[in-house]
């Protein structure tokens, strides 16, 4: 069963974080078709967030066809991500490994790498929204 975590200061909306974590779990194979997602109650009792947020995330996932809500029984994984995205995965991963090697030889430690990635991610997102 997937367990969510929330980063309230990441600048990313809560419901989006949930959507992303579900998609990530699908990608990594942590959850598979037929697995049940935590109920809204379970999620909010754990994370202390608004139930509407979780409901919205699950609705988004359902709209994308990734999960399906069964009345009275819960929300279940309906399909994995399209293989196409997994293909991009490999290419991007290779590029990332090259970049990491470059950052490493430039003298960046793990902390600096993470900070650089978070800051850049935040700025690009902000610029996209503004």
């Amino acid at each position, binding site marked *: 069963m997937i367990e969510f975590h929330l980063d309230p200061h990441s*600048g990313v909306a809560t419901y989006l974080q949930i959507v992303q974590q579900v998609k990530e779990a699908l990608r990594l194979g942590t959850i598979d078709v037929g697995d049940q997602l935590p109920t809204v109650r379970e999620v*909010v*009792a754990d994370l*202390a967030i*608004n*139930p509407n947020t979780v409901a919205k995330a699950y609705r988004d996932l359902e709209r994308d066809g990734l999960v399906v809500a069964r009345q009275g029984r819960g929300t279940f994984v309906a399909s994995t991500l399209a293989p196409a995205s997994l293909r991009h995965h490999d290419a991007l991963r290779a590029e990332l490994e090259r970049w990491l090697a470059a950052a490493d030889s430039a003298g960046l430690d793990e902390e600096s790498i993470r900070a650089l990635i978070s800051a850049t991610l935040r700025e690009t997102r*902000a610029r996209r929204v*503004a």
Partner: protein
Amino acid sequence: MTPSPLDARGLGKRFRRDWGLRDCTLTIPQGAIVGLAGPNAAGKSTLLALATGLLAPTEGSIEVLGKDPLREPSVLAEVGYVAQGAPLYRSFSVAETIEFARRTNARWNDEIVSHFLTRIASETKVGSLSAGDRARLALALALGKRPQLVLLDEPFAGLDPLAGREFLQLLMDGVAETSATVVIASHVIADIERVCDHIVLLTEGGIRLEGNVEDLLESHRILMGPRRPLGSIRGVHTVVRERHSGRQLTLLVLAAGPIVDPSWTVDRVGLEELLLAYMAPERLPTPEPPERLPLRWHG
């Protein structure tokens, strides 16, 4: 049409000479989790006390679930209220307190309360509970009557961060189960930022800002740029707050549209920062129409 959970019209309350609340008009959307924010003595407790009939309005009216709490106090069976300090009978044991709530409410569900009891012995005297446990007990009782509306007055006061988190967990669990509308009054925004989808900001007895959190965050922006005299900025409706330090000028603005001005860096604003800006003690003039930007004082 179902009545709004809380509906105030021109509501005002005077204590001797001072108005604790004045000219308050507010409608809370059903199913929302509303943060009632504002500094101390802004009128938050007064508003909640008026909503539960503990105070009588000096002017205007208030209705909860379509009923006046003073004229039709039976509506309070549908309202879960935890007053500031979570008042309970200190000499009662936990079990007796639950029995009290069970016997004074026609509709009662033991589930939330028994869940709460897993860590506390039911014979413990309420007076010897920690602040966090007492707050959670009061909340469990408020939720146990299956209310349609939950009103919490400064529930985090005196709670350490863990207790505060546990309180929120219990609250959100209860809300997920009952789809209740919630109003949480707190002068610490960080405590409620996590869960609120609607905000009402009170300052000095009046509503300063109100709306859906997403909409508010979407319509406000932080602009940073070199210090210069302000003309009108395309896309900016009002400047809410202006700050300068050295050569940098920082504005918090209400946007009228997309802001595409290369001389400004545009950034989103967090909820706490937004509310603090509106709470600033200086009186802010009414917004000008979008074309002209009025001169502002320094924040």
